């Protein structure tokens, strides 16, 4: 009797795991379909650019403060930590290289994407989730206006435009933060700081690769946020869960994609 009970419980656990797996696969497929639908119905975003501009304002411009302040602090911390280690080897002038490479290659795109997912991604998910819950999207469909081309696509392109700009600003402000710590505070020579940086940071290998990363992260974060909002159950709890999932999924995808992209970019 107990053996049968155990078997039943095991079967239920297995079924649960299988159900979750199939559910994830289903969501992945639906997300990919939404991505494709967004791409082919984004003609309207280009015909009416103010739709995109308004969204650039809410995803990009309003994210500026948090991005710039974090960048400044990240740069200052990099300067302090880098100096602490480099001075043991008597090469504290290399601090400019360390700060610039760390920011341009990795921290700029990745930290910006994580902050972007938290600041702009959640806003997108909540907005679209509520639009769906209050049946604004259905109303649009009733009026023969495609919600994908009117609501989803402009937000998508706004995110794709905003992310690289934010990541570039992050890197630049972070380097200024590192400069503030290294040169006036610690007393590293300003000329050595900049010249070593210029000698070792490459336009194609470092800056353009960082830019490519930020564009890819922008696509990933925005489409995840849009899909979670579009897919959210039209209830208060559903929208709140979707918002949480946006942050979790975006962060994991960004970090995973970062590894994949880096392994493509770094030729050993």
């Amino acid at each position, binding site marked *: 009797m107990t053996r049968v009970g155990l078997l039943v419980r095991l079967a239920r656990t297995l079924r649960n795991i299988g159900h979750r797996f199939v559910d994830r696969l289903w969501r992945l497929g639906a997300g990919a379909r939404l991505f494709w639908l967004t791409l082919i119905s984004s003609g309207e975003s280009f015909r009416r650019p*103010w739709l995109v*501009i*308004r969204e*650039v*304002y809410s995803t*990009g*411009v309003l994210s*500026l403060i948090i991005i710039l302040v974090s960048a400044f602090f990240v740069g200052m911390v990099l300067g302090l930590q880098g100096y602490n280690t480099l001075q043991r*080897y008597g*090469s504290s002038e290399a601090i400019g290289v360390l700060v*610039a490479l760390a920011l*341009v290659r990795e921290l700029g795109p990745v930290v910006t994407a994580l902050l972007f997912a938290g600041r702009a991604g959640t806003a997108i998910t909540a907005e679209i989730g509520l639009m769906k819950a209050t049946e604004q999207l259905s109303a649009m469909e009733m009026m023969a206006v495609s919600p994908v081309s009117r609501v989803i696509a402009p937000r998508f392109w706004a995110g794709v*435009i*905003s992310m*690289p*700009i*934010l990541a*570039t*600003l992050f*890197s*630049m*402000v972070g*380097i200024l933060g590192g400069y503030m710590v290294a040169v006036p505070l610690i007393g590293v020579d300003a000329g050595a700081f*900049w010249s070593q*940086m*210029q*000698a*070792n*940071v*490459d*336009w194609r290998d*470092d*800056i353009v690769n960082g*830019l490519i990363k930020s564009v890819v992260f922008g696509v990933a974060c925005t489409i995840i946020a849009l899909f979670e909002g579009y897919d959210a159950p039209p209830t208060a709890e559903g929208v709140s869960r979707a918002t949480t999932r946006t942050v979790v999924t975006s962060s994991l995808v960004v970090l995973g994609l970062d590894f994949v992209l880096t392994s493509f970019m770094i030729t050993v």
Partner: protein
Amino acid sequence: MERTTIDLWVGVFVALGVAALLGLAMKVGNLTTSDIGETYTVTANFENIGGLKPRAPVKSAGVVVGRVGGIKFDPASFEAVVSLNIDKRYQFPNDTFANIYTAGLLGEQYIALEPGGDEINLKNGDKIAQTQDAVVLEKMISQFLYNKASETTAPAVAAEKQAESTETGDDTLGSNPLDNLTAPAK
């Protein structure tokens, strides 16, 4: 379409992004210095290139005159074939000497060209005959340890060697090193 403050802010945002990218390119990166104009290519064979990488600088008298174009392995001679892209403005004599040096103690490796005295200059596709390999730290350390060990195990041989070296030292310095101070340079 009327203009709104949102448009202004988005314009400022995009302009800031472009300015930051320009700043990265000009102030942080080496976009302005990386192009060395028209180049010609010469090759040099090394038995050991150490940690030399493509795009490492080629310097002469400390000035960057080119970059390492590519590094290949020659299966016939078991040597590394390094191609150097040198700026067309700078011509080097045929018997130029190519060394692999390290910038600083742990810095990146670069190729230093020491020009010889030949009348004929290197042309595109030429090969630099005289090269010096990269210094491999492990080799130097093991050599040093080997010398130390032989000194302690065979003191007689070491003493003999030392006597020899002081003898040759006498030859070059003269009987008294101070003599050289007053004597005019030869």
